[in-house]
């Protein structure tokens, strides 16, 4: 970066809602960051501007015009991501944007190109890629130790909308709210990390439980021509979970692999030369042993780690994000769009090439399977 080597990274955190506040705290606590904040007028801005030293702008354009920034963290309602990221990149700033990236994946592609032409660190807040157990899942998968993966289940459950109530932007689909964008985006982003954008989406249901303006539960079947078939099951009206719980399990020709935020479990039929430390049968590794310490902890190492990596990439003068770059988040935006399209039309979206599967042999009178 141009001028911040000694003075640190000057960052504007935009949006002081649920995610924005915690992002602001973590950025502000980072020793390399010099922080300003920005949010429309409101209770939180009111309270904070009287009580903390950090300057708080009430207008985004004014902040961009007046403040000599190196980077922004965008944590506004999803509908505002595309225009704000555009404005920031055009000013030459590095950008960390909260997920989902853009509600229209054509915007995501355009901004991916813009960020790469400007050589900026452009990252999206899919924090599960910073959870030790899911990183281990990805590492194991990449060694090929699981053999050919054919069968995947991706799930997320939690207690967000538990009764019919007047909603916020989070309960309006057009605003980027709802269980699909808020919850399902996370397991989908993990599937994109493991296998890329699916070739075909079928069987999607965006179901209502309590919300009027959006979905509370999501089902979908995703298919990769050169990979597995995955089933997605997500519900944010599940009080039995204390907080959001995301889990992925996969079956391959050499075993079974499972991960959630706490642990990664692998069953191997045969040990694999590329995967040291995992023998035949079950091996369990816990996130506690798979996770590096962070400088400032607020709500899980993964949240601090993704912001620290962003800040440190900017400080080191890197021209791209180390993880969760715009291109990878665009895959997720495309996948979300495929699911919406499939749920609305009932028609399969994308083309699956049929694998050469032998037709079932004719059985006798009683043979059904």
């Amino acid at each position, binding site marked *: 970066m141009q001028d911040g080597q000694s003075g640190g990274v000057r960052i504007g955190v935009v949006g002081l809602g649920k995610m924005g506040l915690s992002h602001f705290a973590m950025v502000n606590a980072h020793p390399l960051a010099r922080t300003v904040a920005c949010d429309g007028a409101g209770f939180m801005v009111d309270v904070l501007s009287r009580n*903390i030293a950090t300057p708080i702008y009430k207008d985004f354009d004014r902040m961009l015009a007046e403040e000599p920034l190196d980077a922004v963290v965008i944590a506004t309602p999803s509908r505002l991501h595309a225009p704000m990221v555009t404005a920031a990149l055009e000013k030459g700033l590095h950008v960390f944007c909260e997920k989902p990236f853009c509600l229209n994946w054509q915007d995501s592609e355009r901004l991916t190109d813009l960020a790469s032409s400007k050589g900026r660190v452009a990252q999206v807040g899919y924090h599960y890629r910073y959870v030790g157990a899911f990183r281990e899942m990805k590492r194991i998968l990449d060694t090929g130790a699981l053999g050919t993966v054919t069968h995947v289940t991706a799930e997320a459950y939690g207690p967000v909308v538990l009764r019919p109530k007047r909603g916020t932007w989070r309960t309006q689909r057009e605003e980027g709210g709802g269980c699909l964008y808020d919850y399902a985006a996370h397991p989908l982003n993990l599937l994109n990390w493991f296998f890329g954008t699916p070739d075909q989406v079928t069987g999607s249901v965006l179901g209502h439980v309590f919300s009027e303006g959006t979905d509370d539960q999501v089902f979908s079947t995703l298919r990769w021509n050169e990979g597995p078939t995955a089933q997605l099951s997500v519900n944010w009206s599940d009080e039995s979970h204390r907080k959001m719980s995301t889990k992925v399990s996969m079956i391959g020709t050499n075993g079974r692999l499972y991960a959630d935020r706490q642990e990664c479990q692998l069953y191997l039929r045969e040990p694999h030369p590329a995967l040291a430390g995992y023998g035949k049968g079950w091996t369990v590794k816990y996130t506690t042993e798979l996770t590096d310490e962070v400088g*400032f902890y*607020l709500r899980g190492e993964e949240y601090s780690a993704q912001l620290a990596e962003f800040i440190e990439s900017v400080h080191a003068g890197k021209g791209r994000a180390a993880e969760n770059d715009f291109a990878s988040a665009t895959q997720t935006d495309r996948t979300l769009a495929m699911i919406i399209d499939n749920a609305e039309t009932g028609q399969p979206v994308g083309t699956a090439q049929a694998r050469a599967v032998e037709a079932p042999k004719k059985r006798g009178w009683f043979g059904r399977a």
Partner: protein
Amino acid sequence: MDRLLFGDNQFFGVNHMSEEKARAQAMRFQKTDAIMEVLDTAYDAGIRTFMCTTHDRIAEVADRVRANPARYADFTFYPCMPYAHKYANAVTEHGMVGALRQFMPSDGLLSTALAGGKALATKEVDGIAKVLIDMEMKMFQGTKAPVIFIQNVFTDLLLGMGFSRAFRIFHDHVREKYGAEPAYITMNMPMLLEMLEKEGIERPIICSNINKIGFRMSGGFDAYLDALKSGRVRAIAMSVYASGAIPADEAIHWISELPGVESIVFGASSAGNIRGTKALVDRYMGQVA
């Protein structure tokens, strides 16, 4: 403070190792009887202080304790507020102001002020903070609650934002209204200590992870040891076993030789683990009492 305090994570499905184990615990402890049984085991082993979140279920525990003053003559609560998930979920559902109003008495002036949507005076903001503390404290009325904590997610959010005055409001209100000692749970002890001192809060009681392998001691192991040695903090150690990574004897022995650690807080569900930890603390840190 007693040498050994009993925590409540195990009762509410908090387990840092396994979601399956967390759920099994949530099932086991869904009846207050099951919680009381474990608390009785701890109490009878001489562990008299229960350090607990202001979770709805704790209100039932407080009812039991109040109902039987003879049985629980020395039973002491160390409330930790707020129960963060309650607020986080409410914010998603109602927005920031809506969530705040959810937790305020609906007939109060402050709720009306919030509903008005206009800028609030500093005095009103302080008032809201005090009302929120009072709402959380309601369930402990008529019990012993001599030390009151801010829960770590909230402490660390305020810490990260640099909102040090909130600690001062909390400190003064807890002292004045409850005659209790204000205390803080954090995952960032050295940084918090510095901020509290800047607010003029001296030798605060701070509960944080302190363990031999430096697990979740954010800000660095050495910075923790320096803070402890400086005598500027009255520390309570949590996660002393680092989620099971350190053998119990070795973990407690190591803690016992650290200066500045006044107490250990631990959670357990089995009588064996409760008595085992109690015996180790007695051996290395002196009798609890």
